[in-house]
Structure formats: structure tokens, C-alpha cells
């Protein structure tokens, strides 16, 4: 007890101590430097990385594995700051910008994509133009439109890809025999199995993706929805989508009177057998949940015959980050073949790499080839057979808003 107290007092006292900032807040100056100079500058500093903290295994990979490399090889202290929604981080930067905190912000890096990236870009709150400096940038295939565009918004050197993901469904093979394999089948299945399905209410990320799948279905495919927002097209498809979802509502969990607030709440419902289907943008989560005992061993996952949506997620450095050099070093470490392989290991995280594996060293390539997915996780090759693109963020927010107004209440 005494030790804890002493520790506690110390930690309070320390937090009052002035923090010494390396002068790495000036993005233009950093961009003009060579890589070795940047690494030297970052030495001994810290980097505050804000990212979704809801998955223990991801936290562990970031804190232990990545944090360990930074500490041992570069003498950089990584502070992982877990948030429950990336919007919170965007808000912190927004608040700082409002208050005129332009070179001493609290956020050095964000795990981000989609709408939040768009907001950051619109608010002119992103540090850009550095990707070519990163040595590991050569592993990234910027010619791939799915990498060069974040939900339809050109990346243009303002963020660095980290992982790729594709939406998949999961079910418990011991409980459910024939899970629906397309949105059309799902609509019928829900009516035949009342109370067995639900989805998290948008703006939950995964819930919104599910609604987009229905939107694509109502539109007869994604092709006509690509490109800038089209109000007439939206109105036409949206009307059909709300009808489908509202017709489905009485057959949902709790007769659709309430929806889970987050994907984690839905995960609990599935784990507790309150619902029969689960889905996630990150199929590796199914394997993790089986491994830690949250899901039974009999869980299996699959993609849809009419395709599921895939995306790339990125890391971004806010314009007012005081530790840009350290953040760049961190991004370079994240892109390395070793770190991307570690991340792809099913027992670590199991997510797909954002780099081109064939551009890495033969050893790393061999390691990637040796990966065996757990039975509960559908392979990315299988999923990749029918992949759907993400829409531009303006479509996405219109769909979320529309859901809230027409289905959610």
C-alpha cells in the first residue's frame, strides 16, 4: 500500500513537471531534412499515438511490439492513448485549433480513415508531404487506387497506409446451420428467424458499413454510386434502403425497438447467444475472440456472394503535433516488413498488410507464406473474390444521417 501511495504521489508530481519538447513541430523544416537527421532528432523524444483501444490484442501489439522497437532502436517513448471512437481524437485536434494551439498539440499520430480523414483534411489539420522521406514507403503500392484513395478522398501524401480490411460475417456452426450468404438471403433469413439478428446503430463504424451493404443491394450494385455525391441518385436508393430496413425492423433483436450502440455490444450479444449472426470489418477479430474464450470454437466466418466492402486504414500526423520526427520514425517502423508480418500473425492480430509483400525481403516473404489462418477466420483470398469499394465520405455521412432520421427513431 505504501509503495502504491508513494508511486501515486510521484506520478502526480511528475505530471506537473514541464515537458521538454524537441523542436520538431515545424513540418516544413522536417520535410526538408534527410532521414538520418530525422531519426537523430527523434531520439530521446516521445510520441503520443491515439488509436481505437477496444481490442486488447491490438493494444498489446502497439504497446509491446511497436513500443519495444521504438524504445530499443530509436530511444523513443511510445504513449499509446486508447480511445473508444476516433471522432474523439479529431475533436481534440479541432478544439486545439480553435484555441490557437498550433505547434504544441497533444496528438502526434492518429489511426484513421474515411470520414475522420475527410474532416481532418477539410479542417486543414493534417501534416502532409512527407511520405517520400520514409525509407519503407517503397513497400507501398501507391498505384493501387484502393491505397491512394481513402474512401474516395485522394491521400496525396497526407497519411500512410497501415492495414487493409474487408467486411465479413460470422456465425456459430453449432447453433446456425445455413447462414444467409447474400444481402438478399439475409433479408429473408431475418424474417424466418425473428429476434436473431441486429446491427449496431450508425454512426457505429461497423453498423454503418452494414447499412451500406444494404444500400448497395438496393442500388443493384456499387458501380452507380462511385464518384461524387449525387442527390437524385441518393434519394432514389435511400428510399428503397429505408423500406428494406424498416420492414426488417420488427424481426430484429428486441423487435428493433433498440439497437446495440456499438460493435462491441453486438459482439457480446453474439457471444451470449442473444443473436445468431455477427459481422466485423476486421475478420481477424473472430479468431481473436475464439482464442480468448469470448466466442465458442465452433464459430465460422464468410463473405457474401454479392461481395463485401473493403478498405485501407492509415496513420496520420496532425499539423500541430510537437513530435513530428518521432511520429515519422513510428510510421516507418509500422510499414516495415517485420512489423507488418507480426501484425498479420493470427495469434497477434491477423490483419492484412498494407504493403506489397513481394517487395519485402525473401525471409519476410517466407514468413508471410507460413501464416495459417485459424478456422474461424475466412481467408483474405476467399473474401477478395467478391470485394466492394467504399464510397466517398459525403455518401457515407448522407447514409448515416438518413438512417438516423428514417430508421433509427
Amino acid at each position, binding site marked *: *500500500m505504501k509503495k*502504491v*501511495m508513494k*508511486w*501515486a*504521489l*510521484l*506520478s*502526480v508530481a511528475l*505530471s*506537473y513537471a514541464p515537458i521538454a519538447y524537441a523542436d520538431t513541430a515545424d513540418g516544413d523544416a522536417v520535410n526538408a531534412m534527410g532521414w538520418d537527421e530525422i531519426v537523430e532528432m527523434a531520439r530521446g523524444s516521445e510520441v*503520443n499515438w*491515439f488509436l481505437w*483501444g*477496444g*481490442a*486488447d490484442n491490438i493494444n*498489446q501489439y502497439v*504497446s*509491446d511490439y511497436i513500443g519495444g522497437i521504438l524504445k530499443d532502436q530509436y530511444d523513443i517513448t511510445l504513449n499509446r*492513448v*486508447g*480511445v*473508444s471512437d476516433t471522432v*474523439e481524437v479529431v475533436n*481534440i485536434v479541432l*478544439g*486545439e485549433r*480553435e*484555441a490557437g*494551439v498550433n505547434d504544441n498539440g*497533444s496528438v502526434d499520430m492518429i489511426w484513421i480513415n474515411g470520414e475522420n480523414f475527410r474532416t481532418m483534411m477539410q479542417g486543414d489539420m493534417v501534416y502532409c508531404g512527407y511520405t517520400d522521406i520514409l525509407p519503407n514507403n517503397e513497400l507501398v503500392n501507391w498505384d493501387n487506387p484502393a491505397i491512394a484513395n481513402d474512401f474516395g478522398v485522394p491521400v496525396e501524401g497526407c497519411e500512410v497506409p497501415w492495414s487493409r480490411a474487408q467486411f465479413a460475417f460470422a456465425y456459430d456452426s453449432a447453433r446456425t446451420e445455413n447462414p444467409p450468404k447474400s444481402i438478399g438471403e439475409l433479408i429473408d433469413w431475418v424474417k424466418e428467424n425473428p429476434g436473431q439478428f441486429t446491427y449496431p446503430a450508425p454512426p457505429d463504424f461497423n453498423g454503418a458499413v452494414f447499412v451500406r451493404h444494404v444500400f448497395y443491394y438496393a442500388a443493384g450494385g456499387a458501380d452507380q454510386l462511385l464518384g461524387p455525391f449525387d442527390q437524385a441518385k441518393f434519394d432514389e436508393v435511400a428510399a428503397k434502403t429505408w423500406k428494406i430496413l424498416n420492414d426488417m425492423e420488427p424481426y430484429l433483436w428486441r423487435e428493433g425497438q433498440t439497437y446495440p450502440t*456499438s460493435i*462491441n*455490444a453486438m*459482439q*457480446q450479444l453474439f*457471444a*451470449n*447467444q*442473444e443473436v445468431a449472426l455477427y459481422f466485423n470489418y476486421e475478420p481477424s477479430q473472430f479468431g481473436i475472440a475464439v482464442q*480468448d*474464450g*469470448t466466442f*465458442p470454437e465452433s464459430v465460422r466466418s464468410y463473405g457474401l456472394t454479392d461481395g463485401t466492402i473493403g478498405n485501407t486504414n492509415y496513420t496520420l500526423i496532425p499539423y500541430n503535433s510537437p513530435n513530428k520526427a518521432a511520429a515519422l520514425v513510428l510510421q516507418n517502423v509500422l510499414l516495415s516488413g517485420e512489423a507488418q508480418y507480426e501484425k498479420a500473425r493470427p495469434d497477434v492480430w491477423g490483419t492484412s498488410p498494407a504493403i506489397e509483400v513481394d517487395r519485402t525481403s525473401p525471409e519476410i516473404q517466407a514468413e508471410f507464406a507460413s501464416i495459417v489462418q485459424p478456422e474461424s477466420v475466412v481467408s483474405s483470398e476467399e473474401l477478395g473474390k467478391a470485394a466492394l469499394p467504399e464510397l466517398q465520405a459525403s455518401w457515407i455521412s448522407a447514409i448515416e444521417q438518413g438512417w438516423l432520421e428514417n430508421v433509427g427513431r
Partner: protein
Amino acid sequence: MHNDSPWLRAFRGLAGAVLIVWLVLPLVPLAIWSFARGWFFPDILPKQWTLSAWEYALSERAGVIDSLGLTIGISLAATALSILVGVPAGRALGLYKFRGKELVELLILAPTIVPGIAVALGIHSVFITLGLNNTVGGVVLVHLVPTLPYMVLVMSGIFANYDPAFESQARSLGASWLKTFWYVTFPAILPGIIVGGLFAFLVSWSQYILTLLIGGGRVVTLPLLLFNFATSGRNDITGAIGIVYILPGIIILILTARHLSGRNGAVGGFGRI
């Protein structure tokens, strides 16, 4: 009062038993979950027992131990601050009658009737400009808002039954101001400081939204950690952190329990609003 019928006594016993069960019940699943693995519906007890949630919670990487230290530090600092600020105010309100006293009482008690979130959003804006957001110092300061009223309340109750004549006697016998305080005032008000401090500590200890807003997610106290795990579906780790979170309160309670009950009037001070 010894002529109670056996029925009445049986009723009391039954009501007491129900009360005991009800008071303990919500903590039971938390404790079980912390040792469970894959505890699925409809199993009443887990099929597999494990210590892995505890191993994780007590390991360095989980951050629970760090967070425990930080939470204790913040609560102790907030309590100390509210004692420092609250005892003089309690003295003024307990000992003196003066114009505007009701207004002062209303002001000091206002935070107990105006929900914290209503002021926290505004305070957050101010703290951003002052650079106090996302800092431990800022969190300690904002915890003063909900803790101070309890401190003042309890202390004014204590001072209302306190005779300042002893102080003047000590002074007239040549004791210095400091000695008078140490040997006369302090022992007399100590029970109040303990009870008020206990309340202040517990109020700070269980603060969630103020810490979340002002700490901006950077000051990760135990409730924040617990909330994150509770909403991420890891019931086993949630259970373990939940138990870790309630232990210090229990220890402090056991240390101060004899001051809480009885007729010292410290808790009764709540009747004075």
C-alpha cells in the same frame, strides 16, 4: 420496545436477509467473471476457470497498476485540496452568522444539485485555453467541484458543535497560533476531516465524466479503463479490473469505519442543507 411480536421479528429477519443478498449480488458476477473463460449462456457457472484475466490485469502492459496509482494519486490530491479549502469555509459557516450566509451556502452547495456535465463542458473550454486540459493537474482541479461541497457540509456540521472559547483560552495561556491549532482545534475537528475526507475521496474516486472530458482520454484513471473494457466485451478482464477498482475503497472504509457511524454528527450534517 421489547414486546415485538415474533411475526414482526421474523419479518425483520427476512427483510434483513433480502437486503444482504441484494447488496452483495451485483458484485458476484463480476468476481466470477474475473476467473472465467468462455462462460456462455446458459451455463450458470463457468465450465472453465482460469487466472488469465488476473494475470493480464496485474501485468505491466495492461496499465491497470499504473492506473491504480494514478487514480489514488488524483483522489488523494483532490481530497487534500478540498480539506485545505473546505475546512476554513466550514468554520465560517458553522461558527458565524453573517449577512449573505444563505447565498454563500447556496453557492457552495450548488455543485451537488447541478449535474457535473453541465459545468464540465464549459470548464473544458477554459482549460483548453489555460493548457490545463489533458493534464493530471487539470483533473485534480476539476474534481474539486464535486468534492468541495461534501467537505464544507461535513465541516460546518462539526464546527456548529464546536466551542471556539477553548482556542482563546489556549491563546491567552500563551500558546502560539500553530500550537493552538495543533493541540486544540485539530483534535476536535479531526473526526469531521476524516469523514469529509472520506466522502471527498470517494466522490473523486468514482468520477468518470469529469475525468474523461478534462483529461481528454489522456489521464486514464481506473473508471476510464474499466469503462473501456466493459464496453469492449471482455467480461473477464472487466471483472478483474472492477475488483481492483473497489478494493482501495474497502480498505479506506475499514480504516475509517468507526468514524462513520455513531453520534458524532459528521454524517448527520447532511440534514443541514
